[in-house]
């Protein structure tokens, strides 16, 4: 099974360790992983800001880079959701490309979804001693259908206890450029999320999207919480610490 890893622009820039964790997990599941070197961004920032032309150009680029792979896997519900739920809209008036795009969409997965439903990863390499709580990122949950998959994988880990928080499915306020354009509202939503994380008493917040991670971790630290770890689910499952 030849899997193209779509690292995502945020992971590339901010936290490459997530990309390597994803790589490790995919290999542990027996996949042959390729990382197209010209990849950049899925086009979501442009798409959500109304710049359809640039989103389309980037979608076409992703298509060309990943079309030859059996699967496209991204450690992000947001980018996987962008491809699966929105790429077809970008090519709705171009039947030939639309067919190719649709075939790509059908083979595009968020990492944990892929590990559970396609690669059927049995042995999770990581180990984590402590309690974690899981934040469902909006696009992962509502566009890519990610809910039980990360929990199923975390449940396989010895020493890890999952304690669900209140409002796990409520938006953390990130929303891409929204986080800067409407900083005050965004901060309030992040604050609500921090309250729920704190109330859960978990040692670590685990989630599957780096955008939400930066937002929630940024707010936790500003509030003076230096203790609660904020970890990408790939890092936890792979057993690689975020600061390697």
């Amino acid at each position, binding site marked *: 099974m030849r899997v193209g890893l779509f*690292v995502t*622009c945020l992971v*590339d*820039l*901010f*936290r*490459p*360790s997530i*990309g390597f964790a994803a790589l490790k997990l995919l290999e542990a599941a027996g996949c042959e992983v390729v990382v197209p*070197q*010209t*990849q*950049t*961004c899925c*086009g979501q*920032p*442009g*798409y*959500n800001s*109304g*710049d*359809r*032309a*640039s989103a389309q*150009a*980037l979608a076409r680029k992703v298509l060309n880079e990943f079309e030859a792979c059996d699967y496209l896997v991204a450690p992000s519900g947001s980018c996987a959701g962008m491809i699966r739920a929105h790429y077809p*809209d970008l090519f709705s008036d171009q039947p030939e490309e639309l067919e190719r795009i649709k075939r790509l969409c059908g083979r595009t997965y968020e990492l944990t979804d892929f590990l559970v439903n396609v690669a059927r990863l049995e042995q999770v390499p990581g180990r984590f001693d402590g309690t974690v709580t899981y934040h469902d990122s*909006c696009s992962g949950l*509502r*566009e890519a259908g990610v809910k039980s998959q990360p929990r199923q994988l975390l449940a396989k880990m010895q020493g890890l206890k999952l304690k669900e928080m209140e409002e796990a*499915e*409520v*938006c953390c306020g*990130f*929303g*891409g450029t*929204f*986080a*800067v*354009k*409407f*900083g*005050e*509202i*965004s*901060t*309030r*939503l*992040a*604050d*609500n999320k921090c309250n729920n994380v704190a109330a859960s008493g978990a040692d670590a917040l685990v989630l599957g999207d780096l955008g939400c991670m*930066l*937002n929630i*971790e*940024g*707010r936790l*630290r*500003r509030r003076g919480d230096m203790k609660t770890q*904020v970890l990408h689910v790939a890092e936890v499952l792979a057993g690689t610490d975020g*600061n390697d």
Partner: protein
Amino acid sequence: MQVTSMNFKARAGEKLADVKLQAALRKLQGNFVKGRADRVAELDNFEAIRTAAAEIRDRALANLDVYLEEFETNATARGAVVHWAETAEEANRIVCELAVRYGVRKAAKSKSMVSEECALNDALEAAGIEVIETDLGEYILQLAHEPPSHIVAPVVHKSKEDVSDLFEEKHKLTRKTRIPDLCREAREILRPHFLSADMGISGANFIVAETGSTLIVTNEGNGRMVTTLPRVHVAITGIEKVVPTLEDATTLLRLLPRHGTGQTITNYISVNTGVKDAADLDGPEHFHIILVDAGRTKLIGGDMQAMLRCIRCGACMNHCPVYQSVGGHAYGWVYPGPMGSILTPSYVGIENALDLPNASTLCNQCGVVCPVKIPLPDLMRKLRERQFERGLKPWPEKLGLALWGWTARHPALYAVLSRIGARMLAYMGGAEKRIHHLPLGGGWTAGRDMPAPQGKTFRELYSQKIRKG
């Protein structure tokens, strides 16, 4: 109603700091969010009903002219008079002319968002007619001279104490503090108005083509008084409210109260058909129905048409994290929350509400709960596209998008720039690995740190790894 949607951001800041408002907004969570979830769980065929509901609305919109004409024919046959108002002003003019024709001095109103769109009360008052809002929430707002902040619970931004203060000041009676006592006081004040009003004004949740009826759902019974006691009943509503049959209306009614107030069904459902005839004990002698366009036909056939399915349940705002944080007044017009972020620019002009389609994280909670499956985030995104095409975006955003879009299409350059960026930001993060202040990113760092990058990009680390083998 005056449009102040361009002040969204400034207002939002005030609202976030308003402790009383924040406490009031928390009520939504319990009553409406949980209420909806519980009522939906009772239905074992919920998704099937939802699909049917969306189809009914789509069918009505696809044949809008046909159903509206059928409605007019059937309403006329029962003695009602149908008026067509292309604009809000025209609607107001028609109501004022009717008031003159029938010698109306006082009008009692039940809740109608379309009348808010038209600012009907102002028009009637300017014509020397006394208007009394009889929905408790709307009555409170009329006393306070405030606009509604929610389409179902217009006074959700006020606390019980606010209402006690207001009643004490305006009614000049001993202060009441218990909700039942406040309700009784309002009821006693309103009762004589029902009896002395010459005109009753209502809205309509649906208008039914096959019977020519207007249908309203209420919980207080004031709607029934307003539509049956006065000599003249005027119903004012939007043309998109038409449904083909009564059966269609009942299908929609399985969802409307559940999504609106968390009720299985509202206390009253009134189907108003025609005027009082010889056999009737009650009912109006004259029934006028004003069908208002005010921007609606412009949406037909375009990419916003799905918005006209809306049955005004309010679920999208109840579930919207942004609405929950800033309340309805920040949105600056009649309709707040996600549905308002689409309706306001559509009806009052995209250039008069630039923030609204952007004031959403596109979390899609609204789209998931909407009983008629309106893809609200997709419509907001379409409006963003329109802003972009028309050059209505602020220049820093335009520039940022252009730079990002262009660089991301040039991988070699992107690789160089992202390496520099990752290093610079990592340096700025220092030993703490957190950036406290980000130039050009003040919106972020005013309330949050920015966790610093690890220092190298994935792509450069990966190629090093490959080279090492």
